[in-house]
């Protein structure tokens, strides 16, 4: 059959029309590399923010996602908190705690006149109650209170007696109310990071009567002592918070904060251009466009305390065509069942992992795929953290060195090396990153097979230890290197607790423990750096980059100070109490 234009017409038409529409849509943006049309409508006293996800649960002890944490940060207060520089400052407490000489007893004095949103004044008893909630069976952050004497026992007791919501708590021995404004906390063992733990929103102080009255619904109608109170939460639509006039701190300038839940970045962006939002996340792929447009001054790139990597399962070995062991992981002897490698095999496995690291062009990932929203990772600790080691060399992009190491590992040009499965979850730029890595690794002779999964299936897959090479990210829970180095690499954290690479190095475990328990800042920093250097040398990850959040912020939003813990437009740490809306003459 001959195909003429007439025959193809009906089929071509939709393509032509759709193509035209694409061209029209893109044309405006192309032409707008210098001029993007945007409106600057202002709602006086109201900060409008588009966030990507609906908060699932606002009960402090059950909230683990960033949106819930961001709402809680505004609605609740904690004994101590983090300031703009992520330094510990008193919040509900009058001052930072007095710490006993042995580092075990922390004494807090609660401010006078702190009121819950229901009007009642807060006492030290509320702090004790709220901290004990962290040990309740449904608490998702029991590790915060775990260092306190008797906390583990109290939790076990509540679990064993099948405690229900509203039932009396089992008291924690180490928490003592000295008087209505004084609280004494005794730890089971020294934990210098304890004050940082209780600065997390999960340790927010809540009123017992509201928790007992609302039971499960407390997670929907949370009551705290924060600068704003929750007035509306419509699932998948919006969360509205209004200024709480009884707030104990400086009176917020804003009357309301509205989080509009918009799961599509591009929808939020259009809403921003239409003047309906004051702050949105800049969509993936649009940063370069914005940078070269009239909106460049509205673009805020905020480096995060995070690290992005592809982990290598250190307990796994690869199998050759006839089932023979091809070493990849450094400690497969800790796997179940164990595989014992000779020292020479271990050395070759490390050379292979190092070769893979040298094959990665991190500048390309950061500057091209992520449009400058990231900086290459030379190790684990992010640059904004004080233990960051600027002298750490890490792995340069050096394909020649990668090929040499690959040959040293016994696979010249990749010959004899089995295909390595690479798993990642289908979010954000993960697929693009995985494809780029596949190309870079192939370039030196390492073949990979990409496997994309949804988060639920992916997490399950990782938990079971089935992944060989896998994507993950780590964002700081609290601003301390311990949260990166100890949690992600100590053998006691192996598997689901954080050490997903299942890295075991007894010598480094000792360094990590020493660093964790050291109080002297200089000595502590040195120990963390030593431990990090050893980890980088062992290469249990492909160290990739430290990322940044890209936000669009309208010029009429003043006084916003972002920190390294403000991931996403929900800004889980920034003090919105100081933000003002001041219309700008245009």
């Amino acid at each position, binding site marked *: 059959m001959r195909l003429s234009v007439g025959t193809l017409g009906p089929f071509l038409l939709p393509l032509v029309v759709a193509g035209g529409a694409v061209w029209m849509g893109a044309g405006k943006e192309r032409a707008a590399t210098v001029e993007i049309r945007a409106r600057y409508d202002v709602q006086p006293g109201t900060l409008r923010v588009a966030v990507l996800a609906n908060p*699932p649960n606002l009960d402090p002890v059950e909230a683990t996602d960033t949106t819930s944490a961001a709402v809680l940060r505004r609605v609740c207060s904690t004994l101590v908190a983090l300031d703009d520089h992520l330094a510990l400052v008193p919040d509900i407490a009058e001052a930072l705690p007095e710490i006993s000489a042995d580092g075990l007893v922390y004494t807090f004095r609660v401010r006078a006149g702190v009121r819950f949103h229901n009007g009642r004044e807060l006492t030290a008893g509320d702090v004790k109650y709220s901290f004990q909630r962290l040990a309740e069976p449904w608490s998702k952050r029991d590790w915060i209170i775990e260092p306190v004497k008797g906390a583990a026992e109290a939790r076990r007791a509540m*679990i064993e007696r099948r405690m229900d919501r509203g039932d009396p708590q089992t008291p924690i021995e180490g928490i003592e109310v000295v008087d209505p404004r004084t609280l004494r906390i005794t730890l089971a063992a020294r934990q210098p990071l304890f004050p940082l733990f209780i600065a997390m929103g999960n340790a927010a102080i809540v009123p017992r009567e509201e928790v007992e009255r609302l039971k499960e619904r407390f997670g929907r109608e949370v009551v705290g002592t924060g600068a704003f109170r929750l007035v509306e939460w419509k699932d998948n639509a919006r969360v509205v918070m209004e200024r709480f006039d009884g707030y104990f701190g400086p009176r917020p300038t804003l009357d309301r904060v509205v989080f509009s839940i918009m799961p599509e970045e591009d929808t939020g962006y259009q809403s921003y251009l239409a003047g309906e939002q004051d702050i949105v996340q800049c969509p993936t792929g649009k940063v370069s466009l914005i940078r070269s447009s009239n909106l460049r001054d509205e673009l805020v790139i905020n480096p995060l305390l995070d690290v992005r990597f592809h982990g290598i399962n250190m307990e796994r070995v690869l199998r050759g065509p006839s089932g023979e062991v091809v070493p990849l992981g450094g400690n497969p002897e800790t796997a179940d069942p164990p595989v014992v490698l000779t020292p020479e095999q271990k050395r070759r496995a490390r050379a292979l992992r190092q070769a893979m690291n040298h094959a990665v062009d991190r500048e390309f990932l950061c500057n091209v795929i992520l449009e400058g929203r990231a900086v290459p990772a030379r190790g684990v600790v992010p640059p904004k953290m004080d233990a960051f080691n600027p002298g750490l060399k890490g792995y340069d992009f050096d394909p020649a060195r990668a090929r040499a190491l690959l040959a040293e590992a016994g696979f010249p040009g990749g010959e004899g090396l089995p295909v390595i499965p690479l798993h990642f979850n289908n979010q954000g730029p993960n697929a693009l990153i995985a494809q780029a890595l596949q190309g870079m690794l192939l370039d030196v002779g390492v073949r990979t097979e990409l496997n994309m999964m949804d*988060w*639920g299936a992916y997490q399950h897959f990782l938990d079971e230890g089935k992944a060989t090479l896998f994507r993950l990210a780590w964002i700081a829970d609290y601003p301390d290197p311990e949260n990166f180095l100890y949690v992600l690499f100590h053998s006691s954290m192996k598997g689901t607790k954080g050490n997903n690479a299942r890295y075991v190095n007894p010598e480094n475990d000792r360094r990590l423990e020493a660093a964790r328990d050291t109080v002297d800042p200089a000595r502590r920093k040195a120990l963390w750096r030593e431990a990090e250097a050893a980890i980088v040398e062992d290469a249990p990850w492909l160290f990739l980059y430290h990322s940044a959040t890209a936000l669009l912020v309208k010029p009429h939003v003043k006084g916003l100070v972002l920190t390294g813990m403000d991931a996403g437009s929900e800004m889980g740490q920034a003090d919105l109490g100081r933000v003002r809306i001041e219309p700008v003459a245009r």
Partner: protein
Amino acid sequence: MGAYLLRRGLLVLPVLLLVSFIVFTLSYHMPGDPARLLMGQAANEETLALKRTELGLDRPFAVQYASYLAKVCTGDLGRSYAKKGRGVGEIVMESFAVTLRLALLATLVSVIFGVAAGVIAAIRPYSWWDYGSMLLALLGVSLPVFYLGFLLIVFVARNVGLRTSGFDDTSLWTEFQSLLLPSVALGALSTAIVARLTRSTMIESLSQDFVRTARAKGLSERVVVLRHALRNAAIPIVTVVGANMGGLLVGAVLTETVFSLPGLGREIVQAIFQRDRELIAGGVLFMSAVFVVVNLAVDVTYAWFDPRVRLE
């Protein structure tokens, strides 16, 4: 009629039973542990085991399914794992209210514009009116809803000053504004189908003897077209509109996502990602029931349009 409705109503039960079984089985075997997703990365095994017990996930499949069915029979669709403190019934009804309004408005759009375009094309066949209407219909069929939605946001909402996205139900007017563009995007495909169907059935209807008779009686062309030809052509249109209505109700997830509307489709998709089994099962079960009821309603309306149809 009553016996017919009763019979059809009883037939719904095995359908819903089958749906519940399929959905529950699929969500049960989906990879991923709901307890793990709920408790987060830092949860230890003891905590996870406790959560599994609390949710009843440690029981055998048959027991879980039977207990779920028993609850459903009493009208309780269960509790959401992920949305603490909320019943599935409450979540489904709240989000379905948005989806229903969206689907109704989309249906209205499709009927008004689809029938009008089809009638205009039919009474002036092979004219520019005809080509123009059918070209628009072709566009409606061809453009994916998420893309059309995005075009509407970029080129219509921002130029006309309509709300681009999000759902504001503080007043009827703001709610209408929130749903207007989404309903156009969602109803586009349906509009196109209705327009093409109306055109073909109207052309056929206008060539029938009774239309010639009506014209011979001296009735105005408006009466001939609207009262005689269109009514005769209405049955297939109603069938398609009804079937589409079901489709609009259950297929609005992309529109809800693009326009950030808190509808049931989005709720179910989120539940799938969170392995929120009772919400998945409850949502799909409810959608299935709605689909069946809409189809039944369509069958019933046949009798109204065509007195020759008897429901037995």
